[in-house]
C-alpha cells in the first residue's frame, strides 16, 4: 500500500515538474501580464516538487527501515541483519533509490534558488525554472518510469517478477530476507561520499541554469556570474569533499594501500571538478575585466554535461568499474539527454556568440588575467587527458577489437607535469596584478618567497630525499606556501601600520575585508598541503608481504610487526570476521596493537579486506591481512604498507573547508548594502 502511495506521489511530482517546465517555457509567447502570472504559477509548481519528493523519499525510507522485502528495491539493498542507519543510507545504495535521491537534492536546490530575491533580475526567472525543472523532470521521469524504487514483487503463473501494478491472477510475493547492501557500501565513508558528490553535482546545475537564462535573455553582462558565485563555490566545496571522502573510503575499505586508482568512475566524478575549478577561476576575469564571456559559458555548459556524463558512465555499463551499477535501460535515455542538453546549449552559445564581446583587452602576458588563462589551459589539458583515458579503451575496443586498460601509469605520466605547472601558477598568480604586470614587478614581489622555497628544497635535498620528482614537487609546494603566507603577512603588516591594529586583529580584519581573496589563499594553502600528502604516498610508499607464524616478526620502514593472534567469529550483522592481532614496535619500543581483518559477507558472498592503520603526520602504517586458512598451519599472510605523509592530504582537506567557508559564507549585510548603494546610484542618475 505504502509503495503504491509512494509511486503515486512520484508520478504527481513528475507531472508537476513537467507543468512547471512547459509553463515557464511557453510564458515567453504571452503578453507581459499573462506571462508574469504564468511564471508565478510555474514557480509555485516548482516549489511544490520539494515537499512531494520529500514525501516520496520518506516513504521509501520507511519501507527500507521496516524490511518491506516485497518491494524490489528494498530487497536489493537491505537485509534483516543490517543496522538501521545503513538501511537509511541504502536509499542511495542502489540505482533506483539514488536517482530519487538525486531528484530530491535537485528539487531542494532549485527551490532554494527560486526562493531568492528576484527583484533585480526578474527576466531570468522563467529560464532558471525551465532549466532546473527540465533537469528535474528528466531524473524524476527516469525514477518513475524506468528505475522505480516502489516496484513490488508478484507471483504470477510465469514466476516471480517486479511490477508497478498487480498483474491479473497474481499474489504479492515477499522474500524472507533481502540481498543486503553491497558490502563496499557498508562503511561510514559511504554515508558521506555519495551525498556530497551528488550535492556537488546538483549545485552546479544552478549556475548552469542562470548561464542559460543569460544566454536566452541576451543579458550579456556578468550578472549571472555574480548571482551564482556562491552556488558555484559551494558546489565546488561539495564536489571536492565528495572526492576526498571517496578517496578516504577507498583507503579504508578497498585494501589497495591507496586512495585513488584512476578508476574510470573516479575520473567521471573528477572531470566536472576540473571544469568547475577552471570556471571558478576564469569567472573572476569576467568580473574584473569583462573578458572571456564565451569561455565561461562554455565551461559551465561543460561542467553541467560532464556531471550528467559522469552519472551516465556510472549507470549505463559502458565502462565496467568497481563502482558501476548494474546495467539497465536508462543508459540510452541518459545518452539522449546529454545530446539534447549539450547540443542545445552549444547552439545557444554560438547563436549569442557575437553579442558576448569582451569589454577590455589583454595587455600583458604576465597580468593576472593572462596567468588565469594559462591556469584554464592546464585544467583543460588535465581534462583532455582524463577524457581520453576514459574514451581510449572504448575506441580501441570498437576499432581494433582489443580491449585495453588505461591504468595509473598513463594518468600519472600525462597529468604529473600539468599538476606541477598548476602549482607553479598557483604560486605566482596571486602576486601579479590585474591588467598589467611586468617581469620586473613580478620579480620584485617574487624573490623573497622564492629564496625561502629554494632554501627548503636544499634542506630536503640534504636531509630527506634525492628524488628529482619529489624535490620538484616539494619546491613547488614550498613556493606556494611561502608566497601565500607572505601575501597574508604583507597585507596584515600594511594594515597594522595604517590602522594601528595588532597583528592578529589586522590579519582577521584583512580577511574580513576581502574574504573572497583571502579565503581563496587558504584554499591554495590547503591544496599545497594536500600535494604534500600526494607526493608522499605516490613517491615514497613502500610495501612488503610475507607469511608469518604466531610470534614471528616482519619489518618495514623502521616498524616491526609481530603477529600475535588470530580469531574468526561472527559479527553483529551476520558477516564472518577474521581478525588478526599484531603488535607494532619501533626501535624496540611497543607502540600498540593493530587489528587487520577480513570481513566475509554471506548475504552478498563478498569479502572485504579492512586494514589496521596507525596514522601519524610522518607516515601511515597500513597493514592488511591477505590470507589465512584455519585448516592449514602455515600461518597468516600480511601485507604492510608505509605511506609517508598521507595524512597531510586529509588535513589539507579540512583547511580547504575553512577556506571555502570564508570565501563563500553569505554576507547578508554586504549584499543589502550593495542593493541599497545601487539604488541610490540609480536615484542619483535619475535625478540628474
Amino acid at each position, binding site marked *: 500500500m505504502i509503495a503504491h502511495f509512494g509511486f503515486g506521489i512520484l508520478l504527481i511530482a513528475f507531472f508537476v515538474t513537467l507543468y512547471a517546465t512547459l509553463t515557464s517555457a511557453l510564458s515567453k509567447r504571452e503578453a507581459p501580464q499573462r506571462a508574469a502570472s504564468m511564471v508565478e504559477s510555474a514557480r509555485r509548481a516548482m516549489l511544490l516538487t520539494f515537499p512531494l519528493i520529500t514525501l516520496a523519499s520518506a516513504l521509501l525510507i520507511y519501507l527500507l527501515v521496516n524490511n518491506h522485502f516485497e518491494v524490489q528495491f528494498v530487497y536489493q539493498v537491505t537485509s534483516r541483519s543490517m543496522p538501521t542507519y545503513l538501511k537509511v543510507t541504502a536509499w542511495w545504495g542502489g540505482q533506483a533509490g539514488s536517482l530519487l535521491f538525486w531528484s530530491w537534492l535537485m528539487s531542494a536546490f532549485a527551490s532554494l534558488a527560486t526562493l531568492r530575491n528576484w527583484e533585480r533580475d526578474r527576466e531570468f526567472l522563467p529560464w532558471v525554472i525551465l532549466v532546473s525543472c527540465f533537469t528535474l523532470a528528466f531524473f524524476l521521469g527516469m525514477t518513475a518510469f524506468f528505475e522505480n524504487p516502489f516496484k513490488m514483487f508478484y507471483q504470477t503463473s510465469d514466476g516471480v517478477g517486479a511490477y508497478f501494478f498487480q498483474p491479473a491472477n497474481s499474489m504479492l510475493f515477499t522474500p524472507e530476507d533481502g540481498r543486503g547492501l553491497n558490502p563496499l557500501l557498508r562503511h561510514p565513508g559511504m554515508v558521506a561520499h555519495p551525498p556530497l558528490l551528488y550535492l556537488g553535482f546538483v549545485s552546479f546545475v544552478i549556475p548552469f541554469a542562470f548561464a542559460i537564462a543569460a544566454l536566452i535573455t541576451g543579458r550579456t553582462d556578468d550578472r549571472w556570474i555574480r548571482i551564482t558565485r556562491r552556488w558555484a563555490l559551494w558546489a565546488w566545496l561539495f564536489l571536492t569533499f565528495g572526492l576526498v571522502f571517496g578517496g578516504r573510503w577507498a583507503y579504508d575499505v578497498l585494501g589497495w594501500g591507496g586512495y585513488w586508482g584512476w578508476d574510470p568512475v573516479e575520473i567521471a566524478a573528477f572531470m566536472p571538478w576540473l571544469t568547475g575549478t577552471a570556471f571558478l577561476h576564469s569567472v573572476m576575469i569576467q568580473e574584473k575585466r569583462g*573578458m*572571456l564571456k*564565451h*569561455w565561461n559559458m*562554455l565551461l559551465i555548459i561543460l561542467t553541467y554535461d560532464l556531471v550528467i556524463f559522469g552519472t551516465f558512465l556510472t549507470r*549505463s*555499463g*559502458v565502462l565496467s568499474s568497481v563502482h558501476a551499477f548494474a*546495467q539497465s535501460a536508462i*543508459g*540510452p535515455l541518459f*545518452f539522449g539527454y*546529454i*545530446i539534447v542538453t*549539450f*547540443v542545445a546549449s*552549444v547552439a545557444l552559445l*554560438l547563436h549569442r*556568440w*557575437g553579442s558576448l*564581446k*569582451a569589454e577590455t583587452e589583454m595587455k600583458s602576458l604576465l597580468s593576472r588575467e593572462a596567468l588565469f*588563462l594559462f591556469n584554464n*589551459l592546464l585544467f*583543460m589539458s588535465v581534462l583532455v587527458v582524463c577524457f581520453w583515458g576514459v*574514451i581510449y579503451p*572504448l*575506441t580501441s*575496443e*570498437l576499432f581494433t*577489437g*582489443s*580491449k585495453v586498460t588505461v591504468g595509473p601509469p598513463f594518468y600519472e605520466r600525462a597529468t604529473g607535469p600539468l599538476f606541477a605547472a598548476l602549482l607553479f601558477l598557483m604560486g605566482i598568480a596571486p602576486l601579479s596584478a590585474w591588467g598589467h604586470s611586468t617581469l620586473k614587478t613580478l620579480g620584485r614581489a617574487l624573490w623573497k618567497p622564492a629564496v625561502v622555497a629554494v632554501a627548503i628544497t636544499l634542506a630536503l635535498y640534504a636531509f630527506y630525499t634525492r628524488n628529482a620528482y619529489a624535490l620538484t614537487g616539494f619546491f613547488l609546494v614550498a613556493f606556494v606556501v611561502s608566497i601565500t603566507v607572505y601575501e597574508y603577512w604583507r597585507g596584515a603588516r600594511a594594515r597594522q601600520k595604517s590602522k594601528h591594529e595588532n597583528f592578529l586583529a589586522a590579519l582577521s580584519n584583512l580577511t574580513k575585508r576581502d574574504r573572497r581573496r583571502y579565503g581563496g589563499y587558504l584554499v591554495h594553502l590547503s591544496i599545497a598541503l594536500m600535494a604534500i600528502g600526494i607526493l608522499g604516498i605516490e613517491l615514497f610508499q613502500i610495501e612488503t608481504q610475507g607469511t608469518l607464524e604466531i610470534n614471528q616478526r616482519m619489518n618495514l620502514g623502521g616498524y616491526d610487526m609481530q603477529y600475535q593472534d588470530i580469531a574468526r567469529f561472527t559479527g553483529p550483522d551476520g558477516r564472518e570476521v577474521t581478525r588478526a592481532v599484531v603488535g607494532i614496535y619501533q626501535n624496540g619500543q611497543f607502540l600498540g596493537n593493530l587489528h587487520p581483518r577480513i570481513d566475509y559477507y554471506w548475504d552478498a558472498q563478498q569479502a572485504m579486506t579492512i586494514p589496521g592503520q596507525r596514522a601519524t603526520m610522518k607516515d601511515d602504517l597500513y597493514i592488511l591481512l591477505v590470507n589465512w586458512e584455519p585448516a592449514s598451519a602455515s600461518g597468516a599472510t600480511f601485507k604492510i604498507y608505509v605511506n609517508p605523509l598521507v595524512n597531510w592530504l586529509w588535513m589539507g582537506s579540512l583547511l580547504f573547508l575553512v577556506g571555502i567557508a570564508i570565501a563563500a559564507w553569505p554576507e547578508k549585510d554586504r549584499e543589502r548594502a550593495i542593493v541599497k548603494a545601487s539604488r541610490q546610484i540609480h536615484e542619483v542618475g535619475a535625478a540628474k
Partner: protein
Amino acid sequence: MTETTPSRRAVPLWAQITIWIFLVGLLIIIAMGLNRAQQGTVQPGQQIADFKLTFYDGYRIDENAEINLSDLRGKVVMINFWASWCKPCEQEAADLQRAWEKYEPSGKVVFLGVDYVDTETSALVYLKKFGITFPNGPDLATKISQYFRIRGVPETYFIDQQGVLRYVQIGPFVNLEQIEAQIDPLLK
C-alpha cells in the same frame, strides 16, 4: 580553446562545422560503446564468424595444434567457456564429459572447451581432476570470449552444421539431459 577568441562577429562557418563534426564524432563513439554495452551475448540465429582455437597439449583434435571453426562445418559444435577458478563450472564438468563420451563415436558432434582467463598449469590440473578428454584450449588474448560477448563463465554455445548459432546456455547445466536436449534436435 578557439572559444577564447573575442570575436566581434558570429563564429566563422568553418569553426562551427569543425566543432559540430568533432562533437558528433565523439557522440557516435559513445553511442557505439553504449550499444555494445546494451547488447547481450551473440544471439541465436546468427552466423558465427570464423575463429581459431589453439589446443592444450593432450587435448587436441587429431594431433592438430589448432583448429578453425570453419574446419568443423558439417558438424554440430558445442563451445563451452570455462575456467579452473570457476566454481559453477565444476558442477557441469562431469555431465559435459559424459555427453562427450556419448556423442564422440558418431563423429557428428565436436565439443570445444574454451578456457577463459586461466593459467595453463591450473587448467591442466582441472581437466585431469574431472577426467575431461574433449578438445580444450586457452582463449588467447580473450578474443573468442570477446566475440561471443560472454558475461561470465560457464556459458555454452551450440552451433549447427551450417555454422549458425542455435542456443546459448548461461550458467551451468544441471544434468546430462539438458545437454542432450540441445544437441539431439540439431542432429536430425
